[in-house]
């Protein structure tokens, strides 16, 4: 039963990814002008233009171009950048790692913090600490990510305290983690954006679980409160929270764009914004596809977690 559901969900994801790739590809066809001209510029000779057109497969029918573009995505050939006149893969290769590092740090911090704060807030329901946690997460959840980022910069980098760098200034080619101080503010901003949702979900489910019969039963049996919470309550609350966590991770794939731009962080988000400003279509296509793929995969994982932690489905498969 679980296997069937998961494989069906997998198939749907592949289909969606395919449709998204068609949408992303069609976007280029709508753009006026010759992509080869865009890469080589106005002074290009007709021979060079023709050669590049041949190389970019521009003379083929649209369907063939789509298929070869799609094939290129799997073999690491993402097309040519009009701005740098080089292959896209060279442009975004290192940036993918940099973005993953940033998102990884944010995830590693925000998930446990969110769960702990949410649990604590639920245990102190109605008290002062709970009010502080609820209000803070409500305020943080409302604000756009760049607003939180600017506030962080004002507080820690420019106006109030001057202790952290506000921009990432690593020489090109050098990995970002060689400069841990420069990672602090972008990662912190990402954490502040993502954590409130985890806190809110954890608090809501914990409150529900704490009021349930089995927790009351455990208490009546005389199980120590510590064990009641850690062994009985928290594991039950983690199922729904896992889904929210996955949704947040998926969101990060897109949300990291603004934060990278704000801190001039050398990741794919920054590359995407630059490419959009230059109308560098093949770069935009490649990065959009990457982000969409990451988004779809994480959402798929979220659903699988949801299916796997659903006790109804588990008992059905045991039968």
């Amino acid at each position, binding site marked *: 039963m679980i296997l069937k559901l998961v494989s069906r969900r997998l198939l749907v994801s592949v289909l969606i990814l395919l449709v998204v790739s068609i949408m992303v590809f069609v976007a280029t066809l*709508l753009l006026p002008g010759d992509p080869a001209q865009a890469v080589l510029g106005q002074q290009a000779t007709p021979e060079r233009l023709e050669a590049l057109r041949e190389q970019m497969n521009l003379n083929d029918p649209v369907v063939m171009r789509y298929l070869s573009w799609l094939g290129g995505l799997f073999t690491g050939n993402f097309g040519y950048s009009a701005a740098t006149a080089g292959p896209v893969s060279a442009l975004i290769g290192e940036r993918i790692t940099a973005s993953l590092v940033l998102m990884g740090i944010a995830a590693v911090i925000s998930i446990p913090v969110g769960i702990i704060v949410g649990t604590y807030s639920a245990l102190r329901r109605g008290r002062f600490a709970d009010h502080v946690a609820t209000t803070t997460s*409500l305020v943080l959840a*409302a604000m*756009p990510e760049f607003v939180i980022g600017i506030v962080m910069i004002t507080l820690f980098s*420019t106006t109030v305290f001057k202790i952290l760098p506000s921009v990432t200034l690593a020489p090109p080619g050098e990995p970002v983690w060689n400069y841990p101080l420069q990672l602090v503010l972008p990662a912190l901003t990402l954490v502040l954006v993502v954590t409130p949702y985890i806190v809110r979900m954890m608090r809501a489910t914990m409150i529900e679980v704490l009021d349930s019969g089995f927790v009351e039963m455990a208490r009546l049996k005389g199980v120590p409160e510590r064990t009641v919470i850690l062994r009985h309550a928290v594991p039950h609350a983690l199922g729904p929270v896992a889904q929210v966590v996955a*949704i947040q991770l998926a969101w990060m794939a897109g949300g990291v764009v*603004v934060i990278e731009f704000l801190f001039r962080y050398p990741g794919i988000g920054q590359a995407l914004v630059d490419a959009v400003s230059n109308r560098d279509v093949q770069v935009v296509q490649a990065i959009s596809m990457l982000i969409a793929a990451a988004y779809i995969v994480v959402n798929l994982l979220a659903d699988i977690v949801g299916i796997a932690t659903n006790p109804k489905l588990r008992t059905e498969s045991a039968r």
Partner: protein
Amino acid sequence: MSTNNTPTDMAGSAIDDEVSSAPGLFRRMMRQKQARIGAVLTGIVLLVALVGPLLLPWATGFTSTSFSGRPFQPDGIFGTDNLGRDILSRFLDGGLRLLAYAALATALGMVVGVVIGMAAAYSRPWLDNLIMRSNDVLLALPQLVFALLAITVLGPKGWVLVTVIGITHAPRVARVTRSATASVITEDFVRASEMYAVPKWKILLKDVLPNITGPLMVELGLRMTYSIGFVAALSFLGLGMQPPTADWGLMINENRIALTVQPWGVILPVVAIAILTVGTNLLTDSLARASANLNAGE
């Protein structure tokens, strides 16, 4: 600012029962302290954004695009910006367009989403499936990426921003509408209307729509909050409102290089956007509590 989960938190709201009509919903909402705080915060920023443009150049002596001095000088109340324009003038003039774009995008997304959602819930299963699966495809692209793709192709124009943000909202609204509609169309009064052969569109408009206002209002507030952040973020990236337009998002982008020298050009718009989004979110949150309590009584 994530798009997939509602900032609602039903726990902890304890409001006694009352009549379940739309005015009752608003009364219940405003009885909560956080709703009143939200209304005040939203009201302040709305006032600045709506009245601000009317005060120029009478109040500050400059229009939002005229040059008042050299760049980043402490002239006037809040100094000058990166091109030597008066920051207060630009601030007063910079909120209206942001609000208008966000409101238009929200309205577009709500109308399209509600129509699609209600149609899906109240049509044959295969059509319902088709609509909801195409919905899933649109949901599979992060909103920002979708917007950036559209801007690359069509350019950063006002109608592109409004349309693209509206379109990215629509499938999310449609999902909420569909599930709300699905629970209403099995009610007896809808069955009764069907027996009298009332046209389907009339049933949806007269019988179903009034009964799903609660979740729709919550969705409206949520979408408005996101739209504001979205329009501001795109302008901040330099891909929304274009210079020399005065706009809060764009102001942050233009002036952030001089945050240490002349912080007001960044702080004023940032604070305004923050207050506005927190205000609308507080309102939405209390609306959701009020609405959840109403529906719980059913």
